[in-house]
């Protein structure tokens, strides 16, 4: 047990009694204790709850009743509601909010035996691409704590990268799993919209939000997805489709969207070319495809996501829960000051943008127009998937940038230029490490047709069997060379 084993290896270790779930949890807690001051990737750590869950996991194992994730440490992005542990969404607005319910993804993972260690840092209300909008300060990139871990699920990506937990949940609205996965050099999957229940996930943009997972590789991500996915009667938009199927990747045609590659810096282009050549070497065929409406994706996304957010965030009014301004002199004063003081600048910017886009006289020009663009982008992908099985693309224009380096909001929005189109189309998309640029990880994005997570994950696993980019770790917190139960560096 060294902080870098796969879920399958940890499960074997637990079932073979080489170590206990309590020992595994204590080890994770001690790594968090060492690293969190630097990385700030946890907003809330729950040692008591984690140790109790680990003890329960040990008894399950002793009774021979282990589930697929029994005893596996995990962290939840602080956007998932957890009964009894605060859910802040990295906002002052919810800094003291404790939900009386678990998100469906949380309860499914708990039921499968996973041990939750705490709640990870993120951009406020999942709005941001750098983690800098968090009320609790940004999480930091383990490869270089002066750099952003990406966002919005930066804390989860950083925690997995630093080996604090083997896996973590995240959510992706326009790239919030894939971009931090790329920046931190871990594997992250945004499933098809509707694959994972949104119940108990604090809403940002309801037609785009999708829960997913981070882990060290595609196989581990698949293990988490199989627990998290499936229809939920509490979420009308959750799918009734068959569970993810893994039926062998075979020889595939992989599409390379010309519009994405045209836009790429030479350095990043070279890394991506290496990655796609590796896929070709594995016996797959590369084919250039066109996604002609790509350039309209970012503006359409910021209209739709902000419009939905402007309504989703109206419930934070200081009346029933969350931040409430001191001694208001009227109901309007209560609203105005609670929201002015409780929300950060980026959240306010999106609420204003969205409110504007939905207003009389602008609705047709912005909201409806953006919906039209969304349909065209979706159609682009559907047409492309007539010819190819999977689309390969970059995740980000560049590697992790220094904290504070991107100050223009629109420049920040353009960080998501390669991830937003798949979000608008509702497609499953994965980010996996595919190289280092100036000592920092770069990501390869694999996008599949709707509900073809299996195809994407299998292709990713095949790539990872042929490469070792996903095993590269920053050594800011050295991995242990041994631990209780003596397991060595298995990797």
């Amino acid at each position, binding site marked *: 047990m060294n902080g870098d084993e796969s879920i399958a290896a940890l499960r074997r270790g637990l079932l073979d009694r080489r170590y206990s779930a309590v020992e595994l949890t204590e080890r994770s807690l001690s790594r968090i204790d060492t690293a969190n001051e630097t990385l700030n990737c946890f907003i809330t750590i729950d040692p008591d709850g984690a140790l109790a869950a680990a003890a329960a996991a040990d008894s399950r194992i002793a009774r021979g009743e282990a589930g697929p994730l029994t005893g596996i440490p995990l962290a939840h992005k602080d956007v998932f509601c957890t009964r009894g542990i605060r859910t802040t969404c990295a906002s002052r607005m*919810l800094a003291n909010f404790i939900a009386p*319910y678990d998100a469906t993804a949380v309860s499914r993972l708990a039921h499968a035996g996973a041990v939750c260690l705490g709640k990870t840092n993120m951009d406020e209300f999942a709005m941001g691409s750098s983690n800098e909008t968090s009320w609790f300060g940004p999480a930091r990139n383990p490869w270089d704590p002066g750099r952003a871990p990406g966002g919005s699920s930066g804390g989860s990506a950083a925690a997995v990268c630093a080996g604090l937990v083997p896996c973590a949940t995240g959510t992706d609205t326009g790239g919030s799993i894939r971009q931090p996965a790329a920046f931190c050099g871990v594997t992250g999957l945004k499933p098809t919209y509707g694959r994972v229940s949104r119940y108990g996930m604090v809403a940002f943009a*309801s037609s785009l939000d999708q829960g997913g997972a981070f882990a060290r590789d595609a196989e581990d991500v698949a293990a988490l997805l199989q627990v998290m996915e499936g229809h939920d009667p509490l979420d009308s938009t959750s799918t009734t489709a068959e569970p993810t199927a893994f039926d062998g990747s075979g020889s595939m045609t992989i599409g390379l969207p010309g519009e994405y590659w045209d836009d790429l810096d030479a350095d990043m282009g070279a890394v991506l070319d290496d990655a796609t050549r590796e896929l070709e070497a594995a016996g797959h065929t590369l084919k250039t495809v066109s996604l002609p409406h790509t350039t309209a994706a970012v503006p359409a996304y910021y209209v739709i996501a902000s419009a939905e957010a402007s*309504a989703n965030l*109206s419930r934070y*009014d200081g009346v*029933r829960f969350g931040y409430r301004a001191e001694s208001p002199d009227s*109901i309007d004063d209560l609203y105005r000051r609670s929201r002015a003081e409780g929300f950060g600048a980026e959240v306010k910017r999106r609420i204003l943008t969205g409110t504007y886009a939905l207003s009389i006289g602008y609705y047709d020009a912005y909201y409806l127009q953006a919906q039209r663009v969304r349909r065209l982008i979706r159609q682009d992908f559907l047409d492309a998937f007539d010819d190819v099985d999977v689309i390969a693309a970059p995740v980000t224009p560049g590697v992790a940038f220094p904290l504070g380096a991107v100050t223009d909001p629109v420049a920040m929005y353009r960080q998501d230029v390669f991830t937003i189109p798949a979000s608008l189309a509702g497609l499953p998309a994965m980010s996996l490490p595919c190289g280092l640029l100036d000592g920092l990880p770069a990501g390869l994005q694999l996008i599949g047709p709707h509900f073809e997570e299996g195809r994407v994950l299998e292709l990713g696993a095949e790539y990872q069997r042929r490469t070792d980019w996903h095993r590269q770790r920053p050594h800011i917190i050295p991995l242990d060379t041994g631990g209780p139960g003596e397991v060595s560096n298995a990797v």
Partner: protein
Amino acid sequence: MQFESVIGLEIHVQLATASKIFSGAATAYGAAPNAQACPVDLGLPGVLPVVNREAIRMALTFGLAIDGEIAPTCRFDRKNYFYPDLPKGYQISQFEQPIVGPGTVTMDPVDGAGEPRAIGITRAHLEEDAGKSVHDAFAGRTGIDLNRAGTPLLEVVSDPDLRTPEEAAAFFREMHVLVRALRICDGNLNEGSMRCDANVSVRQVGTSELGERTEIKNLNSFRFVERALKHEIERQVDVLESGGRVERETRLYDAQRDETRPMRGKELSDDYRYFPDPDLLPVRITPDMLDEARAHLPELPSAKRARYVDELGLSQYAARALANDPDTAGYFDATVEAGADARQAANWVMDHVAATLHRHDTDIAQCPVSPARLAQLIARIEDGAISNTAAKTMFDALWEEDGDIDGIIDAKGLRQMRDSDELARIVARVIDKHPEQVRDMRAGQMKILGFLVGQVMRATRGKADPRQVNALLRDTLGVP
């Protein structure tokens, strides 16, 4: 100048589902504040609405009842505004694609005479109710009770087909009758189960253009609809006659002061920023759903009234009294179906049954005497076995304890005397005992006949048929 008014109503019908439109919380009236508000109703972060299929079913039943257009899909939208008792900061409603499109409600004319009126329905859509602000429970503070938040409402919007306050009130009443007959609303106006907003404008008689309209909110009784509209029409006419212009605005009816006044600006929002609710998929209305809704469709009150008059020969008054309450109509129909004469059954239901229910402070759905028993009772009157008076005694007996009708008649000695010889002997005895009255009657004071009938009835302990006694007395005394 002669003015006429043009009126359209928006009626909010609280649907009688057991749980809320988007959550599993109960909808029962009168619970402790916030005892029936779950995380969805409270608008807590991360929770999601799931549409109540029974609310959809009820809306479809209404749509079928008014012969309304029902599109293959409908959609929910968010209506955005801030208000303390609106937990999410938006109300889930239907804006562009309502579940029910244009249809018609048939109502009796206001004065009870002439042909029924057809009032156009523009649309009917589903939405969630808001909670309540409680201003008098805490000093200097307002309390919020979210029990009502999420209660399903069907908002029914009429065409501007109504011409007078009386007609508007009659339409509201007809809607009340209809939704209760459809069993989609309990119709308790004092619990807010039906609420009404009225749009009204006035114009010179002879013109066809509509005048500027105002909307009056907060009308929760038939009387208030009529009174508020009367006031508002007078106010608009005054404004026009003094050369002013009617402003388009929303006014509140203050029942205590019996006046309408403009709502404060804060209670209004000009721009609700409607957009499709991304938490709810469009609802596909399948043939199965329509079949199920149709299975709940009873004979409509307007059809029932027509049938009572045309086929059963009841008066308009009786037809309305029976048909307009679904439980009463059901009881009456069952009585007739069990073989009772319709007019007899109508009289019984409106008279002795109603009075007895009232005395016991209960309603007809709980009536312990079944329609079949009442039909048997009426049959015994018809065949002369018991008198009307005895039948009332029997009804009261059956109320206390059900049993074999003939057995009880005999046990209580209520069977009418059929033996003419015995009755003739009693009549002779009564005549002998009252020589003075007999003399006066023979002298022309015919009202004494009633007294003598009474004496005979007393002597027979009510078992004689009064008609037979009457005839026998006249015969014996030789008076016409």
